[in-house]
């Protein structure tokens, strides 16, 4: 079976930079997976994301070696037009990806650009608005909305294009924890309903641990860790790479070393508490 996304020894150097932003990166993501990409600031995550959706090399040129394949086709050889229909990108700042005066028109933006006929466009726009639960916002102007609402609008615009893979760049950075949790639940539900694959760049791992199938850690352009959340967070190296290990997991790790807690799966606060009590009694 062909992986939906394959990075094959990808390396990239920006023209005015002495060192490579991405170094020899290998990655395979299968359809329906949710992969979290983490790493310290400046490690090359943004560059990597742009190499996946085609902005590199189509909009940004530089020294490019290796290959990125989405659904079997090389990104380098595909046009942005085709890539835009397979890979959606939700950028970090929701404001700067909403173009139109009304929410509904903006959700249709990508479809208008592709020349989709009006009846089909209408259907897809309504569907995307419905999936994101923003029907009551469809006639509003974007500057009147909260950050969380703007983000949903931007995501609806991406979903309307029906991509198989969606990239989310630090989606929770501007949100408070409850709104962030709602977004994570939304990602889980979209994955379930539509089978969409997600690559999420995120610092706040405690929010994403429930929904992530895999965590990939990057440092100085190279991949340093790649495994299930349990494997990565329980590993020795996590702290060294500035990965935010959630407090409860940190405790579980310590206790597991002394045999007071299991080390084969990640426990929630409540689960860890009952485990500790059982062992203690």
């Amino acid at each position, binding site marked *: 079976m062909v992986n939906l996304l394959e990075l094959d020894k990808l390396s990239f150097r920006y023209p005015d930079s002495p060192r490579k932003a991405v170094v020899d990166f290998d990655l395979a993501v299968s359809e329906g997976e949710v992969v979290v990409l983490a790493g310290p*600031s400046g490690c090359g995550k943004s560059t990597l994301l742009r190499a996946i959706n085609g902005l590199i090399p189509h909009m940004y040129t530089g020294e490019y070696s290796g290959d990125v394949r989405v659904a079997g086709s090389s990104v380098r050889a595909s046009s942005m037009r085709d890539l835009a229909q397979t890979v959606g990108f939700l950028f970090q700042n929701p404001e700067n990806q909403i173009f139109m005066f009304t929410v509904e028109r903006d959700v249709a933006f990508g479809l208008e650009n592709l020349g989709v006929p009006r009846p089909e466009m209408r259907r897809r726009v309504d569907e995307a608005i419905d999936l994101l639960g923003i029907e009551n916002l469809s006639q509003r102007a974007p500057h009147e909305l*909260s950050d969380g609402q703007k983000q949903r609008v931007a995501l609806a615009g991406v979903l309307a294009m029906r991509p198989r893979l969606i990239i989310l760049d630090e989606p929770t950075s501007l949100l408070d924890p409850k709104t962030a949790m709602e977004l994570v639940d939304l990602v889980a539900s979209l994955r379930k309903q539509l089978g969409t694959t997600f690559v999420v760049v995120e610092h706040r791992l405690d929010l994403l641990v429930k929904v992530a199938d895999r965590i990939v850690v990057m440092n100085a352009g190279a991949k340093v860790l790649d495994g299930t959340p349990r494997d990565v967070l329980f590993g020795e190296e996590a702290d060294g790479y500035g990965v935010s290990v959630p*407090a409860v997991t940190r*405790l579980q790790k310590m206790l597991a070393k002394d045999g007071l807690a299991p080390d084969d799966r990640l426990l929630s606060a409540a689960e860890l508490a009952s485990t500790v009590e059982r062992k203690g009694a």
Partner: protein
Amino acid sequence: MIEFSDVTFVHDNGVKALDGITLKVDAGETVAIVGENGAGKTTLVKHVTGLLKPTSGTVLVDEVDTRTTSTATLSRKVGVAFQNPDHQLFSESVEEEMAFALRNFGFPPHLVEQRVSWGLQLFGLEEYRKSSPLVLSGGEKKRLTLACILAWDPGVVILDEPTVGQDAIQKEKLVGTIRMLGSTGKTVIVVSHDIEFLWPLQPRVVVMKSGRIVADGLAKEVMAKKEMLESARVAQPQLVSFYQALARRPGSPFVDALEARRWIEGGQQ
């Protein structure tokens, strides 16, 4: 030091952003203000330096009424680090950027030079002295804005969402910086919705909801009130949730994983 007396603030469009806020922060305290986006945290902060004036009620900073004083004057005593550094960086070089506020506040040239060097040193930015502030990375820009503030040595430092977009290493450094500020006697107010970041600092916690203060006390007490936190849409620190899930537990929640492990392995006494 900072005193809010029954402050209400209503926007031009009729929305009430602050509703009867009464709050007193003494010199040297470290206070965290938490609450969901839109609860009024930033509005509250803007009242301290007079960027916003109360519709009713008064705000006193060191006995000075903010309604009759300019923001520039109040800022001499209260430094505010806003969320977005790109809203203030504009100078040709980092040292010029750091000198900007000092000059505005009337510091003589030799003192400006001294403070700039000190600030650059403290935040590890000496190598960028002559660089343009616009080419610094996001994390470096945040450090620069903080350095700019500390250069004029205000008694109060307010940080508005300092952890947004920061990785774990940067957050740890920030915790250290806040502790350092507290230990040098400064009053520190941190507005943040990152509860896990705040928890190790064990500050006084003020919870806001819909423009009102719904809780105010020590971190260990406030963060234990599950229902109140839920209704204010504030997350509970993981270690507190863990603590509350235990049937047998010590007097107060664990501050860090180490403390929790010690208690558990010490026979849970």
